[in-house]
């Protein structure tokens, strides 16, 4: 997520904020004592995570218990396979992309902190946040929410959605009844609509511009991540 991304500052700041606090201890195997595991660790983390206004304490507890329940390998990190096991995600046409978003390039494990960092994108923006000018842009800002969506398309991380990348996503999204011709012209049209500088692809700025009328804050927020 680091390379040339507008939210880079936030992320690094965030990472520093948490990473300085030492490694999260290995959770006790759930078979022996899951409840203490799920209560003790989040409390330790609470100051870290709420500091960055991630989520409330109870949400951390809850998400941590979700995390441990997903963690079949019981090693404190989630692998791709752990994600794949979520049945609903299996029938999400974008499931792979979403899962990939959790894994920084080149890594195949994500720990609780990384897990929470991604989820933080989907926290609703509260009213008082809008007014206060934060030092760093929070992860759940409109820009970062949009960036997350943008990254779902932009696989090669060149900050452009090329026609091919768009087509792939479209192909995932539509049923099998659409011919590639139709899809191709839709992709052409989409790019043409958004493309202002004529490079036949959609840059992040163009992406933001196209969606400026959409209530992204509301659309990219999860109700219970208060």
């Amino acid at each position, binding site marked *: 997520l680091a390379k040339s991304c507008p939210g880079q500052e936030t992320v690094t700041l965030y990472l520093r904020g948490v990473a300085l606090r030492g490694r999260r201890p290995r959770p006790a195997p759930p078979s022996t004592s899951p409840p203490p595991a799920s209560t003790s660790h989040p409390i330790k983390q609470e100051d870290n995570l709420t500091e960055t206004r991630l989520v409330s304490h109870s949400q951390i507890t809850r998400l941590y218990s979700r995390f441990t329940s997903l963690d079949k390998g019981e090693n404190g990190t989630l692998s791709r396979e752990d994600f794949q096991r979520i049945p*609903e995600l299996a029938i999400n046409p974008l499931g792979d992309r979403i899962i990939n978003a959790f894994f920084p390039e080149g890594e195949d494990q994500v720990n609780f902190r990384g897990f929470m960092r991604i989820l933080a994108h989907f926290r609703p923006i509260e009213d008082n946040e809008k007014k206060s000018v934060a030092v760093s842009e929070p992860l759940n800002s409109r820009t970062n929410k949009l960036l997350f969506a943008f990254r779902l398309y932009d696989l090669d991380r060149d900050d452009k959605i090329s026609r091919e990348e768009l087509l792939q996503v479209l192909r995932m999204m539509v049923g099998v009844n659409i011919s590639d011709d139709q899809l191709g012209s839709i992709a052409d049209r989409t790019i043409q609509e958004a493309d202002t500088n004529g490079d036949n692809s959609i840059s992040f700025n163009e992406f933001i511009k196209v*969606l400026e009328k959409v209530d992204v804050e509301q659309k990219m927020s999860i109700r219970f991540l208060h």
Partner: protein
Amino acid sequence: MDLCTMDLRITRQRGFLLFIFTCSSLLHGSRGEIPSKPTGGVTILPPIKPDNGPQAFPDAEKENMPVFTMNYSRIQIPFEITLWVLLASFAKIGFHVYKKITVWVPESCLLITIGLIVGGIMHSVHEEPPAVLRSNVFFLYMLPPIVLDSAYFMPTRPFFENIGTVLWFAVVGTLWNSIGIGMSLYAICQIEAFGVQDINLQENLLFATIISAVDPVAVLSVFEDVSVNEQLYIVVFGECLFNDAVTVVLYNMFNFVAEMPVVEPVDVFLGVARFFVVGFGGMGFGILFGFTAAFTTRFTSRVREIEPLFIFMYSYLAYLVAELFSISSIMAIVTCALTMKYYVEENVSQRSCTTIRHVVKMLGSIAETLIFFFLGVVTITTDHEWNWGYILFTLLFAFVWRGLGVLVLTQIINPFRTIPFNFKDQFGLAYGGLRGAISFALVFTLPDSIGRKQLFVTATIAVILFTVFLQGISIRPLIEFINVRRTNRNLDTINVEIHCRIMDHTIAGIEDLCGQWSHFYWKDKFMKFNNQILRKILIRDNRAESSIVALYKKLELQNAMEILDDVSGDISAAPSKGKENAKPKRKFLAPDLKNMHDILSKNMYKIRQRTVAYTTKHALPNESQSKEILIRRHASIRRSLRPGSFQSSVVPKSHKYFSLPAGKSLDSKFPPGMTSYADDEETMSEAAYPSRRSRLVQPARSSSSRAMMPLRRLDTLTEVHSVDVVDEKVGDRRRAARGTSRTNSSSSRDPRIPAPQRHHSSADNGRGSADNFRNGHHEEEEEEPQPLSPAPSWTAEPREDAAQNPLLRRPQWKPKK
């Protein structure tokens, strides 16, 4: 349009003919109390007097051998039932011919209307309503299918995630409504002006219980259309199910109490105790029979014909046994269905599974249709006791207490919920409290010892008609209004449309990822218990659950092939697009644009909804979308394991198809454009491509490693043959993809492999790839870098096989360039 109306007319005509016939036959069935009065429409009575008593055979002494006889009384009851069912079914056909009606008017309204018309005609010929709705008939034959239907199609996971709220609303809410309405009505009864002082408290409570049974069928279909959030949906659905149970328990209790001359305080406590005994007892029996049913289906693989029967018999048995001990039979059948469903559907064959679902749906649907239908008939034909005061206050209280109850109960339950209900949800919940079939049936089966039974019947029918017609019709506009749905779709740009859908999918995915079940501890415990003990006992073919395959075990390869075939059909069109690097900017006209919007909005996958697909009362669940996604994703999953890898590896990988020996007939079956994929336009169809790969490569791979092993040993003597076998298998799969029955083709073409084994191989295939990523990426790394290597990459596939089978190293398998 023209066709539509014509169809409708035909149906109506047929329905009308049938209806006349029904009337005439019913007229005869009326035990001869009313001498047949031939009025205008009903003159086609058969000129035979049926009322000669039960006479199975013609009297031989007095008459000669009769050439033509009729013995109506012998077949009367089943005959009439058949006709009623047919009539109701024709009515249903009629509604669905003309779709627009059912969008705006709930089906129950239409059924009642038809019932009213039939009732009107019957009344005009002085016909008695059919005696079908006796207490026993209703409780023993009509109620079980309805409840089984709801319970069997209950979406298990969302239900258990919300079980607290569901039970809270079902149990406490129903108690709240019953007691609230009962007490208020009792207060009303004290007012002399209404002239209903003779209704005592017990009877009022009994009546209140009856009208607090909620039946949200109509609401659910509206919820589905306007896509309210799923928590609301599942709560309404679950509430209706358990609310029935609670209502029936209360009904029996108050019914008992209402006949007691004096009620002592002890009785109240006994009543409360009984309430729990009845509830938990029913649950216990349900679980017991559910597990027995699951265990039985372990052994039914040899008797596929009667396999579905076990499900129905055990459910019904649970119901009857619970009834025997007079504990909650609804509870029993619900828990039985919930318990066994998971295991049974894994044990039985795909066909039995489909049969079970169909029959459950069919029985439930027809039972409910009949009840609504009779509701209309009875409304006209019974004598009513109309008391303005009592009935209006009943309506008022039913409405007010429901609203109050939802408000108060939500406030209490909200702090415990992961996702609290907001005001809109509460409105939906409160306004969705339609009364329906259960209420009507309950009031109609009241014992005659209740003094004001007529009044109760009238009031209940009034409440039902009021809620079903007024609320049922108005709820859609209201919910759409408070949801403020975007209607000016065409004003959006295509970008917005696509990106918004992407975001919706993302949010759905993240939500699923976070889960909303906060009791992971108990869930994990249960899963462990389930995997270690229950599955071993109850499931015949207890394989380790693989991640995705577990979800749709029943997903048959044949189905998959059909879908994949479509995909590859699309692909074949793709190369014609060719490569146009310097694409001229196309001009898109307005109609084009509109067309695109149309295509997108019709074909983009809907946001997943776990509940909705299963709970439509009048339709079977449609899993095609999730199936399709699952197959496509499943095929691409190995690729997705490597982050960001696809763009580097995709071009070489396209060569990884099995290249067939030149001159083989199969060659022609490949899409002509296949070879052209070597060029760099490959990414065009990237998303579709892996599915094809899965069909051609993965099955062959798994077959070479697992299922085909014995086969190869057989064939080691003739090398050529062995290759042919593999070829044949690929061919087989292609043929299966073209819609021929898979088992047929495999048994005819390949008699050495019995079909079940083949099936296993396909399952293995799924597991195989699941295993692949379970083993982490080491295996991937061994396997996948090969295409990245500069060497001709198609050798990768054979090389892998070659490790196991030297026969495959024959030069024939070297592909043509």
